[in-house]
């Protein structure tokens, strides 16, 4: 984080100092665009980047998702070396558990696509799955979609690594610099104002996470997104009993155990309040605690030490919105994320290139905002989210 005063002009202003914004700043600098300011209303990582499930995979159902997230997954494997900072990425594998034949069938149906796209994934029957996740309750695991190169990383370490590398490349990260206006004149973005002070830039990126649609609205850009609260809990540290990252379709939950021994698990449940602040609910605690004890009975009696939430501003198809906003020239969207943590490294690289080339990279092209206005949603059936949420 810079201590320098905000200047009057930058080549690019990125609104939002989360993982997306800071990684994008870093990638722009790598391409020679280092006159970049990343502005955060609070401290960097104070939104969903610092309140995160940390899970990493690329084996989704749709071609669009698989291509984008697999590009990112490959980056995850080399990111520590590139950033010269250990992100604590653990490629312990990622297992999506099926509890019934219907789920098993839908997971197996993804395999041909994975194979066609070169993704490493396989179907494990109950006994093979038990070898990898021996602690899971058998009735909740009749098989699993297994992605060996998947895993998890430490969300703070990733953010610190990117922030340090970005700052070294000349990017200015400004904390506590809330944007109150996006300046648009004649259909072109001209900059933003921070507490009334104008900061000019020909390119402004909306990477404002849970508050992305407010920032878009400042530019007169409408985003058909919806804010949602995601809660997660962390237990006291216990000796490792689950090695890979695990998601369960029945529980609508995802979890892993850190190398410190803390179990980290979140679930998604229908009755979340539309909240403007990352509050936590007793309903969330009950939902998570009872589900995780169901899947891992040995968790009964282990204390919950932390419970937090993050805000996402998700799209109807849960896919991100990437690329220029057609209404305002120079206003670029990098928001609508639900799977933003896993997607950040790859997206930042490709979006930076797209901004410099003034042409969307083919992997990012399907994620343009126009699809939402035209009702051409990306059909992705492998998310762990309550299906009623998906339009």
């Amino acid at each position, binding site marked *: 984080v810079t201590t320098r005063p905000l200047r009057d002009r930058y080549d690019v202003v990125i609104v939002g100092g989360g993982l997306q914004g800071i990684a994008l700043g870093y990638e722009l600098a790598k391409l020679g665009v280092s006159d970049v300011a990343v502005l955060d209303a609070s401290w960097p990582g104070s939104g969903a980047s610092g309140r995160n499930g940390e899970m990493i995979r690329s084996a989704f159902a749709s071609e669009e998702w698989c291509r984008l997230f697999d590009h990112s997954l490959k980056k995850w*494997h*080399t990111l*520590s*070396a590139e*950033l*010269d*900072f*250990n992100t*604590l*990425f*653990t*490629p312990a594998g990622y297992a999506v558990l099926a509890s019934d034949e219907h789920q098993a069938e839908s997971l197996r149906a993804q395999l041909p696509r994975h194979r066609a796209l070169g993704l490493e994934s396989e179907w494990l029957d109950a006994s093979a799955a038990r070898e990898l996740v021996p602690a899971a309750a058998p009735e909740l695991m009749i098989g699993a979609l297994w992605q060996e190169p998947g895993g998890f990383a430490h969300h703070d*370490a990733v953010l*610190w*690594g990117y922030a340090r590398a970005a700052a070294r490349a000349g990017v200015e990260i400004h904390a506590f610099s809330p944007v109150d206006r996006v300046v648009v004149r004649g259909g072109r973005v001209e900059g933003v104002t921070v507490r009334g002070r104008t900061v000019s830039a020909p390119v402004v990126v909306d990477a404002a996470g849970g508050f992305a649609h407010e920032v878009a609205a400042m530019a007169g850009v409408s985003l058909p997104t919806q804010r949602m609260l995601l809660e997660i809990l962390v237990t*006291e*540290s*216990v*000796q*490792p*009993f689950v*090695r890979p990252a695990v998601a369960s379709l029945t529980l609508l939950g995802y979890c892993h155990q850190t*190398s*410190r*021994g803390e179990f980290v698990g979140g679930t998604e449940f229908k009755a979340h*309040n539309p*909240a403007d602040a990352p*509050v*936590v*609910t*007793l*309903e969330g*605690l*009950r939902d998570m605690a*009872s589900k995780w*004890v169901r899947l891992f*009975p*040995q*968790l*009964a*009696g*282990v*204390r919950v030490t932390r*419970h937090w939430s993050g805000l996402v501003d998700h799209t109807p198809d849960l896919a991100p919105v990437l690329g220029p906003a057609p209404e305002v020239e120079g206003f670029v969207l990098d928001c609508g994320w639900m799977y933003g943590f896993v997607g950040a490294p790859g997206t930042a690289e490709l979006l930076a290139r797209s901004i410099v080339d003034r042409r969307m990279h083919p992997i990012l092209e399907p994620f343009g905002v126009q699809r939402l206005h035209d009702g051409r949603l990306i059909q992705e059936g492998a998310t762990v989210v309550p299906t009623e949420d998906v339009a």
Partner: protein
Amino acid sequence: MSDLRVRNGPGGRVVTFTLDGRPMSGVEGEPIGAALHAEGVKVLGRSFKYRRPRGLHCVADACPNCAMRVNGLPGVTTCTTPLRAGDVVERQKGAPSAERDVLGAVDRLSAFTPVGFQYRRFRRSPRLFHRWERVLARLAGTGRVPSPEAARAVAEPAGFAVVQADVAVVGGGAAGLAAALAAVRAGARVTLIERGAALGGWLRYGGAPEERVLMADLEREVRASAAIDCRLGATAAAWYAEDVLAVTSASGLVELRSRAVVLATGAHERPLAFADNDRPGVMLAGGVQRLLREHRVRPGRRAVVVTCEDYGHVVAAELVADGVQVAAVADSRRAGGAAAAAVAGALQERGVELLAGARARAAGGRSSVRSVTLEVDGGRKREIACDTIVVANGRRPARELLLQRAPAILPAGTDAAQPVVDGWWLAGLVGGATSVDEAMRGANAAGTAAARR
């Protein structure tokens, strides 16, 4: 009987239990940690990363230093968990034992593992990191997961009960009791939450004689009141967005709904920064008083008190009265107050050195305290042999619950009758009371106002 036990103790049935399979004995109902302490066991566990020895420290269930595995359940704070016959107590870390942990070498080699080293090591070689991580995974985790029997016992009462009250009072010390009684007088039904096994708060072991009388009167009145639902051994663990308190206890989770909340959560003792201040044998003064006055167990045989307030002198006098040799009271101030002066004569008579303007710089000893190094007379170092360092460094309000709702620094000197945030009042030390009188007046005002909400 252990020479650490004061002879005219509360008595009680002597029971046997095991530590890492070795037979031990203690008094039924006293904290497991106190029983172990009386048996001469100082190392109760090891720290997570540097494997430093850890022992009794706060005796108030406020730190993790005494966490052990008890009857198959990990992470049990033994400083406040009552001993029962046949308890199976285990230290969670250390190989072959917590006392002689071979991995204690990590601490001595800490130059190679500075804070945050994991972000710098192996960054260029993912493969080495992953191998290292597999080694770490074997060492990770403070305790093992609960045994199936322990897990079942915890899981069984897991009903989610809902309790309704007009006023919820959190904390069963003098302020909490006074607030509860005031609320009842104003017509409210009260649910009172106390995480300890008894009412009374710090006055039970730290108060003057007349304050203990006041406490006993309050307790009698609370127990006699039909409008107060008094829940001991229950912790108001969190406030949730549904505007409820989650109360945990051995019998499960209770959702406490109330119109108003009075927080009387008291204060935490502050530790003091000096080298190796985590050695077993470094204890907080209130914890020492609890051990001594409640459980009749001496913290050690020869103590040095380091303090910045009169309270440290008072505790020193209590130690001396109960047969603990006190080598010195090191007060960082140049001159003490009236309470310190009142006990100065008695201390000097028993050979206690009173050092003004002296600060603790380091604890000596490897697995437990063997000495303390003080800085006296503006720079001169002086080492004094002792097995106990008593830290009396003031208190800070226990605001954890409040901060969940109001993450901001509150103005000092708030009127106790005014809510601190909508629907919540503070009473006693958590609200900044500086005397028992002030706490009582404030608690009355807060309880009355809360009932009228």
